[in-house]
C-alpha cells in the first residue's frame, strides 16, 4: 500500500534538484566560505547565489538575508534580537494568540526578562483585527510580531494593514512567513515588514536551515556570538549544503507558486466538500477562503484528534492533529481555543496539509477511509451518545 503523505505543513520531502545541488558540498567542495582562496571562493560564490535566490523568493535583496539554522532560530533571532536591541527605548511587544511556539516561546522568555507582551485575540477564523493592533500600541512598544499564515488552520492575516499601523507608529514589524513562503505570494515591500522568518524544509528544501530577512538599518542583537559570519548577525561556520539546498528550493518554487496554489486550492476545496458530505458533525477550522492553498483543518466532534491520526496512520495516511500529548493529559490546540472553539472540538482537530506531489486519488483515499475511522472511534467514545 502506497503511503499517502498529508503532512506537508509539518515538513516536505527534499526535491531531487535540491539534493543534487547540495551533493558537492557533502563531497569534494568542502571549503569554508570564510577562509581560503581556492576552496573558499567557490563556497562563497555558491553561498551568495543561494542568498540571492532566497532573497528573491520574498522580493528582498541578498544583503538583507541572514541564514539561520531554521525557522525557529529565525523567529528567536527576530523577536529576542530586536527586543534586546531596542531595550533602551521600550519593553512592550505585541503578538497574537495563534502564533507558532517558536514565536510564543521567545515572547515568554522576554516576559521572564521583564518585557510586557500583549497577546491579541483572533476572530472565529483565526484573524487578528488590525484595529486591535492599533489599540494595543503604547509608547514603549518596540515590536509587533504577527504570523503571515497559520500553520494549523492556514488562515492568512491582514499583514499589510497591520504593517501600515506599525510603520505609522514607528514600531518594528516582524512576521513569521514560514507557512506562506513559496506557497502564496510573499513580498517584503508590499507587506512592508522589517523582519520576516523563513525555513527551507517547508518548501522542499532540507531541514536545519532557515533565514531571517532584516530590512536595512533594522537593529537586531545577535543570538549566537562569535565569528563575523552573516554580517555579524549570526556567528558560526556556515551550513554550506543547507544554504545551497535552501537557495535551490527557493529558486525552483518561485516560479511555481501561482500554479501550485491554484491546483492545491481546488484540491483543498474538493476534499473539504467530500468530508462534509460523508461525515456528520465536523467543522472546518480557519477561514473558508482566505487560507493556505494546501490546508484542510477540521474538528471532528466526539473524538480525540490523536486517535484519528493514529487510525489514519494505520491505513497508511499521514496527517496531524493540533492536540499535543503531555505527560498528564492531551492539550488542545491553543490556536483553536483562541478561535473560540470549545475544548471538546479543539481536541478533535485533524489537519490534512497538501503539497506539490499530492494527487486527487490520494484525497479520495482519505475521503473513503475517514468516515469509517470516525464512525469506529465514535462508537468507542463515551462522548458520542
Amino acid at each position, binding site marked *: 500500500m502506497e503511503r499517502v503523505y498529508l503532512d506537508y505543513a509539518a515538513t516536505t520531502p527534499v526535491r531531487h534538484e535540491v539534493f543534487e545541488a547540495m551533493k558537492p558540498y557533502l563531497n569534494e567542495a568542502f571549503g569554508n566560505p570564510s577562509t581560503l582562496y581556492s576552496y573558499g571562493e567557490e563556497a562563497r560564490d555558491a553561498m551568495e547565489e543561494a542568498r540571492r535566490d532566497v532573497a528573491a523568493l520574498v522580493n528582498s535583496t541578498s544583503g538583507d538575508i541572514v541564514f539561520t539554522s531554521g525557522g525557529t532560530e529565525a523567529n528567536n533571532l527576530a523577536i529576542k534580537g530586536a527586543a534586546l536591541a531596542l531595550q533602551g527605548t521600550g519593553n512592550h511587544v505585541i503578538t497574537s494568540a495563534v502564533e507558532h511556539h517558536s514565536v510564543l516561546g521567545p515572547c515568554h522568555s522576554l516576559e521572564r526578562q521583564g518585557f510586557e507582551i500583549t497577546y491579541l485575540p483572533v476572530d472565529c477564523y483565526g484573524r487578528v483585527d488590525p484595529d486591535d493592533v492599533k489599540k494595543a500600541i503604547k509608547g514603549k512598544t518596540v515590536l509587533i510580531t504577527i504570523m503571515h499564515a497559520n500553520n494549523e488552520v492556514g488562515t492568512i492575516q491582514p499583514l499589510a494593514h497591520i504593517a501600515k499601523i506599525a510603520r505609522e507608529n514607528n514600531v518594528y514589524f516582524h512576521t513569521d512567513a514560514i507557512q506562506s513562503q513559496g506557497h502564496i505570494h510573499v513580498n517584503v515591500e508590499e507587506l512592508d515588514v522589517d523582519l520576516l522568518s523563513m525555513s527551507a524544509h517547508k518548501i522542499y528544501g532540507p531541514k536545519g536551515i532557515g533565514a531571517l530577512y532584516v530590512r536595512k538599518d533594522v537593529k537586531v542583537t545577535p543570538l549566537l556570538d562569535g565569528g563575523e559570519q552573516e554580517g555579524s548577525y549570526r556567528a558560526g561556520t556556515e551550513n554550506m549544503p543547507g544554504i545551497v539546498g535552501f537557495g535551490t528550493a527557493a529558486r525552483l518554487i518561485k516560479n511555481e507558486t501561482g500554479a501550485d496554489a491554484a491546483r492545491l486550492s481546488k484540491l483543498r476545496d474538493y476534499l473539504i466538500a467530500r468530508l462534509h458530505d460523508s461525515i456528520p458533525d465536523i467543522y472546518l477550522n480557519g477561514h473558508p477562503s482566505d487560507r493556505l492553498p494546501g490546508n484542510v483543518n477540521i474538528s471532528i466532534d466526539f473524538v480525540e484528534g490523536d486517535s484519528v*491520526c493514529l487510525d489514519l496512520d494505520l491505513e497508511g495516511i499521514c496527517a496531524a492533529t493540533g492536540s499535543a500529548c503531555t*505527560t498528564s493529559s492531551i492539550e488542545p490546540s491553543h490556536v483553536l481555543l483562541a478561535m473560540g472553539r470549545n475544548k471538546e472540538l479543539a481536541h478533535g482537530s485533524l489537519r490534512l496539509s497538501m503539497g506539490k506531489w499530492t494527487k486527487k486519488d490520494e484525497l479520495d483515499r482519505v475521503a473513503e477511509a475517514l468516515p469509517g475511522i470516525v464512525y469506529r472511534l465514535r462508537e468507542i467514545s463515551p462522548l458520542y451518545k
Partner: protein
Amino acid sequence: MAGRFSEYSEKVLAYFKNPRNVGVIKDAGGEGFIGDPTRGVTMELYLKIDEGIILDARFKASGCGATIAATSLITELIKGKTPEEALFITEKDISDALDLSERKQYVAELGRELIEAAVNDYRSKKT
C-alpha cells in the same frame, strides 16, 4: 502539531486496532467514570457482577491511542476476578501489559483510578 505515535508499542496498537469489550452495560453492578473531555481523556467502565465475581466488563473511551488501549485491556484484566482482586491491579500491571512509554504513564494511573471508581460504585450500590 505532534502525534508522537512512535512511542506506541505493538501491544498498544493491537488493543487500539481491535479493542475488546466496547460498550456499556445497562444497570451495571458497578460503573466508573474517569477523565475529562476538556483534557482529551475520558474512560468509562461498566461491570456486571454476580455472586461477587465480575462476569462481564465493558468500556467506552476517548483520547489518545494508549487511553483506548488501556481501557480495553482493563476489561480483560478484571473479568473473572472479584472486585477485591480487581483492586490489586496496579498501575505497573497496566503499564507493563501495554509497554507504555514514560510519558504515557498517566494513562495507567487513570486506568487504576477507573477500576477503583467502578469497584467503589459497586460497593456503594451493594450497601
